[in-house]
């Protein structure tokens, strides 16, 4: 279980998070919703230790991961699919996957497991990552994170700029990970893309958690979506 406890975070002197608390449980998809600039990506980066916390703490299964150096956090099996994919663009598909494999020193079975989930990547192992199509790049970014055999999977706008068939594939993988007992945290702009698969929904506004509720409630009463997102 990943617990974020009242964190405050700043980029240099500009504070971006003013008290965010979230809980992601294994086998559940937590969806973080909020307007542009609300601090969704900042939350993801804070979990990964890429931004220093001013106050608050983040625990994973009882261990305070926010006290670890940033490069140690992924070794606790926290897989990160960053916004804009952030592949190692000039490396090949195989090398990008290798970077994920090295993080937790995963075995060969893991590589096969990941490539079975994304068979398209197996055909393109020697291709440079930047030459892949948008959908394939998203597959690779997801595959790289899955190489850690994650306990927690962070996905930051994974469907951004993808065609519907690709969105569907990524969704299926996310649901599969949830069913395998992974705690999934999903950041999305597009409510319709996630509401059907989310278990919990957190609304973020001005760098603060406004409300956390079960997705079923929200599906029954979409009023809150209008309130927080204005759509």
């Amino acid at each position, binding site marked *: 279980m990943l617990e974020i406890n009242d964190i405050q975070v700043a980029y240099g002197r500009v504070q971006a998070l003013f008290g965010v608390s979230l809980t992601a449980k294994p086998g559940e998809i937590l969806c973080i919703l909020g307007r542009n600039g609300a601090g969704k990506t900042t939350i993801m980066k804070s979990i990964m230790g890429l931004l220093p916390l001013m106050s608050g703490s983040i625990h994973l299964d009882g261990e305070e991961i926010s006290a670890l150096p940033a*490069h140690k956090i992924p070794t606790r099996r926290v897989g990160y699919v960053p916004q804009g994919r952030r592949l*190692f663009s*000039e490396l090949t598909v195989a090398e990008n996957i290798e970077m994920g494999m090295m993080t937790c020193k995963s075995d060969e079975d893991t590589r096969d497991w990941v490539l079975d989930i994304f068979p398209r990547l197996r055909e393109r192992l020697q291709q440079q990552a930047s030459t892949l199509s948008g959908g394939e790049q998203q597959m690779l970014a997801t595959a790289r994170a899955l190489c850690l055999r994650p306990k927690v999977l962070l996905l930051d706008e994974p469907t951004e700029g993808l065609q519907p068939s690709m969105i569907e594939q990524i969704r299926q993988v996310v649901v599969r990970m949830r069913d395998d007992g992974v705690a999934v945290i999903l950041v999305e702009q597009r409510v319709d893309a996630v509401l059907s698969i989310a278990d919990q929904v957190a609304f973020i506004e001005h760098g603060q958690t406004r409300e956390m509720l079960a997705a079923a409630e929200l599906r029954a009463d979409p009023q809150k979506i209008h309130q927080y997102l204005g759509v």
Partner: protein
Amino acid sequence: MDFGPHLLLASLEGAVTAAILALTAMGLSIVFGVMRVVNVAHGEFYMLGAVIAWWVTSLVGGHPAIGFVLALGIAPLVVGLMAAAADKLILQKINYDPDRTIVATIGLMYIIQQTTLMTFGPDARPVQPPFNTRLALPWFEYGESGFAMVWPWGLSITSYKLFVIVAAVAILTTLWLVITRSKIGLIMRATQLDSETAQAFGVPVDRVYMWVFGLGAGLAAVGAVLVVPIQQAHYLMGHDPLLLAFITVIIGGLGSLPGTIIAAILIGMSDGVISVFFSPTLAKIIATLVVAMVLAFRPQGLLGRSVH
């Protein structure tokens, strides 16, 4: 001597310069490529390599080859460790901020230079080459009886200079294999492309930076150990290599390793040829002019990619 043999001689001298330059510039290029750090103290790490080589060889008696081999092992290692320490104690503390990094490495340059002056002294000191046979080179001439092989007077190279070329090629090939084939190389390339994401996949970026800085300085030191039997060790000897290395890295394309090699060959060869036929100063003038032209018309260099 006729033009042909003269040109061959100049090209061989140029090849020696190119070999040393390729090693030195490669160090600068790797540091800039991976860390985006402009290391103004690079020439001083080169100088330290030469001074330590002199120190090691003067302590070790016996055949010059023993001291030289030891120097080739010890000097780059010591210089690399010193640079890694400088990275940890200085550059990491200022968070690799570009402006402060330049100022910090300028400071480092003077500290190293003046410390060497106070301890090693102002003299230029020679290191004996491990072997130094003069090899006469043949030339072909069309005479009365058709093509004939002649041995023009003065057309020769020493076995040591040939060794420098071969050694540089061997070291750079090894480096290339490490960077493109090994896990360490993969981590370096990933850090170069996106250090934040690399960190999110378990790469200890601080430690990678520290050892890359050490590796860069170590490469300069290797170049210096190879050159010191030809050139002598002196506390101000780092200036020219620094300038030439910068020129090479800019022309080759910042951070592009193949570009750095190509540029080192171009500049080293032209430096050798122009120095033999005209003057070394003219060679530097032309090289600097070429940099100005490259910056004006192809700012990303020969093989560099435009900044994304």
